[in-house]
């Protein structure tokens, strides 16, 4: 895939998001649904890789870039992630007063809320892709509840899921199941 086009697609997603995973719906629409460059499975793996890594949650774009075009793609992902943040310099220079204007705040809040609705929307096809057993459904629901009601971070949840899985595999082996 053309690297510049990949950069522009990732930039479009990152520039229109206001949270780490806010870019996910646009990424899925462009790279999974429209162009079929990566799969839902790869997209979820990218999100997981971004979540078990220190630094900003949006780093999953680097992994998405890697799946799409290797190391050059990952570089495009990192650049696409960084580029919109440079706009804060313009805000520092010219918009210090306006940032607190009620109508500006209202617009931003509405965009953030719509991002949440889009994220919920993106969760459904991702879930349909691989929540194909009651156990996996319970893992997804359990992770959701743990994230909401406890202070455990996402890395802890992912490592916990991996740990429980290993434990069950070990128990299953000990009991002589295939």
């Amino acid at each position, binding site marked *: 895939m053309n690297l510049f086009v990949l950069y522009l697609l990732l930039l479009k997603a990152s520039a229109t998001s206001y949270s780490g995973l806010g870019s996910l719906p646009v990424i899925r629409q462009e790279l999974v649904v429209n162009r079929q460059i990566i799969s839902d499975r790869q997209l979820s793996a990218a999100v997981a890789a971004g979540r078990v890594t220190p630094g900003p949650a949006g780093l999953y774009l680097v992994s998405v870039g890697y*799946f799409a075009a290797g190391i050059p793609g990952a570089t495009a992902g990192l650049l696409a992630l960084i580029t919109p943040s440079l706009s804060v310099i313009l805000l520092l220079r010219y*918009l210090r007063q306006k940032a607190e204007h009620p109508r500006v705040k*209202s617009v931003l809040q*509405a965009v953030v809320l719509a991002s949440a*609705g889009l*994220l919920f929307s993106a*969760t459904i096809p991702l879930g349909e892709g691989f929540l194909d057993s009651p156990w996996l459904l319970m893992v*997804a629901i359990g992770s959701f509840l743990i994230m909401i009601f406890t202070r455990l971070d996402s890395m802890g949840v*992912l490592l916990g899921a991996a740990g429980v899985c290993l434990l069950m595999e070990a128990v299953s082996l000990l009991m002589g199941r295939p």
Partner: protein
Amino acid sequence: MKSPKAKLAYAENVHELGRIFFRIGSLSFGSGNANIAALHRELVERREWLTPAQFNLCYALARVAPGTNLLAFCVAVGWVLLGRAGALVAVLALSLPSAAIVVALTRLYEVYGQQVTILTITRWILAATVGIIAASAWALVRPALGRRRWIRAAIIVVGAFALNSFLSVSPLKVLLGAALVGFLWSEHKER
């Protein structure tokens, strides 16, 4: 006591700034807020390079800027401290180490992702990821669910969900529509 500017004059070098952001970017898990808390401790409390007011301004504007808040925050802090070079070094020093780790993890997934045990563990991790994504969405909604404000929030969230899920309206169009709704239906009082 020296002013923050005078203190910065002692330490005003790009290398030191990069070292701080590199360390925090490599070691701080737990999303942007954990990183920002670590930067507050380092830049405001320990070194006093930034005043609390400067820190808060950077934080507020980073929330307004498009893209990842944490990276915008790094750019803002770097720019306030050392201008363009500071902005560039801060954002790269924070993001490069973790980007390298992400690439390594992705490569590992590519190479070993099809082995039976790894495949099973991966399926569990991916299932947990679905829950985490839904929780991220909830974390965006929760602050807007105050008394009397929840109706507006619910309409926007459910509307965005329905437009995208059932009518296949593209995310960009949904976001633009939401911006329009936010402009026309403001619950923040004009001063």
